[in-house]
């Protein structure tokens, strides 16, 4: 794999290639290939570039707002934000374990939707195969739904 930041200054485009050394074009320059060199890994180069760009942009936004922005702290501004209402009580409160259950069940059915969405997008291509496959999937999730219902996991008042 070619990692431009580690390979030193970009080679000149008009450079005569070394014998046995392969190069690839990126940012208008020819880069020599090193240890991880392969076609498969080269195709991941855009992801690496994106990774670097995204972290740079993220860092830049925080740094800029810190450097350029005005800082006029008031007691109200420093308070924890609770939808504009004055906060009461400590932040570390105990709350019923039931919330965890609800969160877990939510994730379960949320994942179902995650699978349904791409299916709906290419429904025309998959036709009957996709329809029955999805039907099976929904039936499996439905079995889980019946299970948690009968177990009383959806009943908030049940202990």
């Amino acid at each position, binding site marked *: 794999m070619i990692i431009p930041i580690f390979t030193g200054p970009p080679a000149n485009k008009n450079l005569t290639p070394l014998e046995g050394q392969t190069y690839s074009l990126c940012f208008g320059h020819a880069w020599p290939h090193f240890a991880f060199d392969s076609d498969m*890994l080269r195709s991941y180069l855009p992801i690496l570039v994106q990774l670097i760009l995204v972290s740079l942009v993220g860092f830049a936004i925080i740094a800029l707002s810190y450097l350029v922005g005005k800082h006029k702290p008031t007691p109200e501004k420093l308070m924890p934000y609770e939808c504009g209402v004055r906060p009461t009580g400590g932040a570390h409160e105990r709350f019923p374990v039931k919330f965890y259950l609800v969160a877990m069940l939510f994730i379960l059915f949320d994942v179902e939707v995650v699978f349904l969405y791409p299916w709906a997008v290419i429904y025309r291509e998959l036709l009957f195969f996709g329809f029955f496959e999805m039907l099976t999937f929904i039936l499996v999730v439905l079995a889980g739904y019946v*299970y948690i219902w*009968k177990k009383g996991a959806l009943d908030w008042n049940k202990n």
Partner: protein
Amino acid sequence: MFNQYFQPNDILIIYPELLLALFAMGVMIIDLFLDRAWKVLNAFTALVGIAYAAYALYRLKSNALNLSGYNHAILNDSFAIYFQFVFLIATALVILISARYLSIEGENRGDYYALILLSLIGMNFMVMGIDLITLYIALELMAVSEYILVGYLRTNRQSNEAAMKFFLLGAFSSGILLYGISLLYGISGSTDLRVIAQRLAERPSHDPIALVAVVTLTAGLLFKIGGVPFHQWLPDAYEGAPSTITTFISVAPKAASFALILRIFIVGLKPLETSWVPVLSVVCVLTMTLGNITAISQSNIKRLLAYSSIAHAGYLLLGLIAGNEYGITGIAIYFLVYAFMNIGIWTLVVAMRRKDLIGDQIQDMAGMIYKNPGAAVLMLVFLLSLAGIPPTAGFIGKYYLFASVIQTHHYVLAVIAVLNAAISLYYYFRVVVVMFMSEKTDEEKMTLSPGVLTSLAVTLVFTLLIGIYPEPFIRFAQNSLSLFQ
């Protein structure tokens, strides 16, 4: 109906697993509508599911051998079919002994059987998979079901602690395994083991990246079989888990993990043999020795058997180090034998559990010969088999494994293995001494439910039969040689 994404073969190959999934869901739903007194029906439902799956597998053996499905992600070769039969047998025996034990523990719910069946599906895919992604997902399906089952006794602190340890260490080792898989993919550009083997063969022999991949893969996989130095979770998990689940995870998932190791090392990493054989040899010696020596000082039968199971993982690694036909046949036959003898002995441990007695101390077996002479003699047979004394089945398994390393001229390994087998005799016979020569401490006899009796009968018959007349079983085990094709 079918298109480019989906071929008729795909459904044909996974038919046994589809049946098992259907029954797993069925058990879960049926359980919701059963009264407390009828919960034993869940075990029957699960057994019927396994019987159906076994029949479907038998049909596959003649109809669809060597078919691959899902874009060459799974391969239905006779290696896979052999190991699936071993899993089905082990799971059926475990279900037989579960019903009574669960009702004593007061946790007789249907999801227990559903989880066992789901774990079985994971194991089946682990032996069929030839693609690293499929293998990993199958491994996790098996492992996640196991984590829940180990912590199945919700009100029991030990059970919860065991599950937590098992889960945390298991998740960690899966991470290491995934790292190795990603490196292999980085090197070869494919997750198909056969392509990986080709690409690895093209690379220079002492490639550092490939070496790192091998080391991480080995570490992740050794955790699953409890090889030293990744064995610490095993005694705690075995001790804390419900005894029936310990029976299960000491046999079927271990066989599945071993089959996975065979598939990865013999098919995928064969070109790097010179780098993994020395690593595994060291691990093998450590595993055998530490397992056997630590077992000597145990006073809890579950922990003793846990360390003995670590030692057995060491013996089994011999077959992989040899890597020849004798070694692979040895591993295959050893797991069939191990399924019977180990489930046999664990069945007796499970049967020791009474309302007022946990029955996991060796001292609880004092004077068993006077109270339950039959059970004591059975225990003796299974212990002899674990130690590898003829004419029991354990001898055949050990014979093949030890012979395989002698064939490949690893004489030192063979000598250490034999010495270890001698050490193991000492602690197995400590149990025998307590059973036969100590005075009984109480009068209460074991409660042997019909399921336990069936399981004991089956395990005893096969432990002796394989020992006395091994030939058909060896021919059956030689199915696994399709691995080399």
